[in-house]
């Protein structure tokens, strides 16, 4: 037993470091932030601890022994090659969000130390979601992410922030409860909890048991669909984002989406025999998800709501890679997730800069940004164009691969829907660019973002453009990962 734990820990140092850092940051944040100091010692100590933990986790992840497919911790998690990009994305999302939180003026009087602590723990949850190979682990990881997210959404001392977190909590708790009930039914039907045993037991199942498994799977999908805001479980997204601090909204639109898709891949991998039956449902919902997200985004006037609906649309594109159900599709999905990470965090970093300056989240706040801060406006345009899928940016390349994988798998309708949606989406992205360059500014003066934002914008911009021009290395790495193991 001891050897199992020792061997498991060997592959699990990144998560261990991050949990330690998160817990310690939490304690420091509560302990040192009592005096109500805006940016007191507690918050700074918490940030320092979490940065160190992130660094240690990154080093550990980099040096991680040849990723194995064997299961760890008695079959609870599996650190296989597929989990690797998702673990990096989780670490990256925590790091970028820390920068955004530190740069946000609206969070200046909030207990930031605790926010860092919660963020570190969510990071652990995201990594666990991506490597869960057991229903218990999947549930615990999902709840870890959810519970801390509810709190982070309500971090502002404002009515709408409290409302947003209450709505998020009520929707989220119901969705995870329904998912849990589905899990319990699946346990009753297969008498096993680990994904590999479930696969064995579902494989030879006949009616009426197979029908009951379908019900269990649909109930489980509710919880996962909620997490990635897939229609019809998307209603919480715009409300939660509008009430949440911008930095938290940025995190929610990237981190949990990536981990949720990873968990979806794992769960559906365990339920492979059921896939042909539910594929039409998921396909239909994918098309509805992207269309609804993009159409409703057209009429938004609040930039956070706009980006929330844009997130729903982007999740629709990402789901294409899942629906086509081929290696190429999974590879395209991973590449687009990486692209989405950089371009969406970049876009949200621009929003943080604008909200810091004007205190307003209306689209009008972007007016004349091209004149007030040319570099910021240029980067913002870059991110928006990448989200819209304009070459030669990484977003274009990702979309190209996604739609290509759909055509290769004979899902022409899916590819067509994606292309049509990209055309619709272009309208609202370009509208924002028009406001920045062709409308007189509302406020005078140069807008100079703080260094944390400049770092974020620089890294995201360089990656969006650089990886878009030279995607080959990334593509080859992902191809090696996907071909190394079939989920």
């Amino acid at each position, binding site marked *: 037993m001891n050897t199992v734990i020792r061997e498991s820990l060997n592959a699990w140092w990144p998560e261990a470091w991050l949990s330690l850092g998160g817990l310690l940051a939490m304690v420091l944040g509560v302990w040192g932030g009592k005096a109500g100091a805006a940016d007191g010692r507690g918050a700074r100590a918490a940030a320092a601890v979490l940065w160190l933990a992130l660094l240690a986790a990154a080093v550990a992840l980099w040096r991680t022994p040849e990723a194995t497919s064997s299961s760890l911790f008695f079959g609870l998690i599996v650190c296989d090659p597929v989990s690797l990009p998702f673990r990096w994305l989780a670490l990256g999302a925590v790091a970028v969000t820390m920068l955004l939180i530190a740069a946000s003026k609206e969070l200046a009087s909030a207990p930031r130390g605790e926010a860092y602590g919660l963020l570190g723990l969510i990071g652990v949850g995201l990594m666990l979601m991506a490597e869960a190979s057991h229903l218990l682990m999947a549930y615990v990881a999902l709840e870890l992410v959810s519970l801390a997210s509810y709190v982070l959404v309500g971090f502002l001392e404002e009515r709408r922030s*409290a409302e947003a977190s209450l709505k998020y909590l*009520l929707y989220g708790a119901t969705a995870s409860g329904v998912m849990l009930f589905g899990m*319990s039914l699946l*346990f009753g039907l297969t008498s096993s909890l680990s994904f590999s045993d479930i696969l064995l037991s579902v494989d030879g199942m006949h009616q009426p048991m197979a029908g009951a498994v379908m019900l269990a799977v649909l109930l489980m999908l509710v919880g996962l669909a909620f997490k990635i805001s897939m229609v019809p479980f998307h209603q919480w997204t*715009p409300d939660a984002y509008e009430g949440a601090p911008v930095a938290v909204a940025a995190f929610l639109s990237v981190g949990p989406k990536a981990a949720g898709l990873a968990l979806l891949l794992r769960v559906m991998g365990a339920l492979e025999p059921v896939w042909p039956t539910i594929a039409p449902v998921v396909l239909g919902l994918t098309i509805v998800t992207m269309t609804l997200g993009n159409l409703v985004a057209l009429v938004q006037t609040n930039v956070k709501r706009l980006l929330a609906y844009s997130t729903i649309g982007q999740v629709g594109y990402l789901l294409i890679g899942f629906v086509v159900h081929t290696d190429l599709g999974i590879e395209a999905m991973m590449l687009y997730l990486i692209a989405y990470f950089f371009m969406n965090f970049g876009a949200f970093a621009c929003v943080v800069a604008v909200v810091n300056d004007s205190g307003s989240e209306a689209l009008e706040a972007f007016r004349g940004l091209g004149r007030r801060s040319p570099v910021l406006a240029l980067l913002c345009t870059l991110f928006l164009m990448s989200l819209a899928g304009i070459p030669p940016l990484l977003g274009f390349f990702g979309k190209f691969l996604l739609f290509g994988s759909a055509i290769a798998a004979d899902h022409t309708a899916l590819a067509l829907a994606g292309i049509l949606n990209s055309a619709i989406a272009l309208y609202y992205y370009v509208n924002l660019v028009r406001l920045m360059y062709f409308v007189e500014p509302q406020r005078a003066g140069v807008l100079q973002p703080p260094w944390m934002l400049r770092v974020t914008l620089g890294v995201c911009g360089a990656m969006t453009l650089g990886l878009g021009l030279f995607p080959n290395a990334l593509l080859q790495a992902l191809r090696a990962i996907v071909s190394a193991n079939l989920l």
Partner: protein
Amino acid sequence: MSPLPLQGLVVLSHAVFCLGLYGMLTRRNAIGMLLAVELILNAAAMNFVVFGRLFSHVQGQAFALFIIALAACEAVVGLAIIIKLTRVAKTVYADDVNVLRG
């Protein structure tokens, strides 16, 4: 041990689950909604215990313990959020929670 009345127990857990969902959809008081969620979680926990006993599988019971702990966490977070809402908005009724449009 006496034989497990499996059918009755599974029907009971489904009934509790449906009651929870019904409560979630009809309650207008945030605390009532939290209680409804609690019913859903306990229905699942009951299933795990029953099936665990049926397969003499200790994992089922262990899962139920985790559900109890996480349900407690959820209640803590939920009540904290509701307290914050009553402080800034003076209401616990979902119909009054309407500053956001969704």
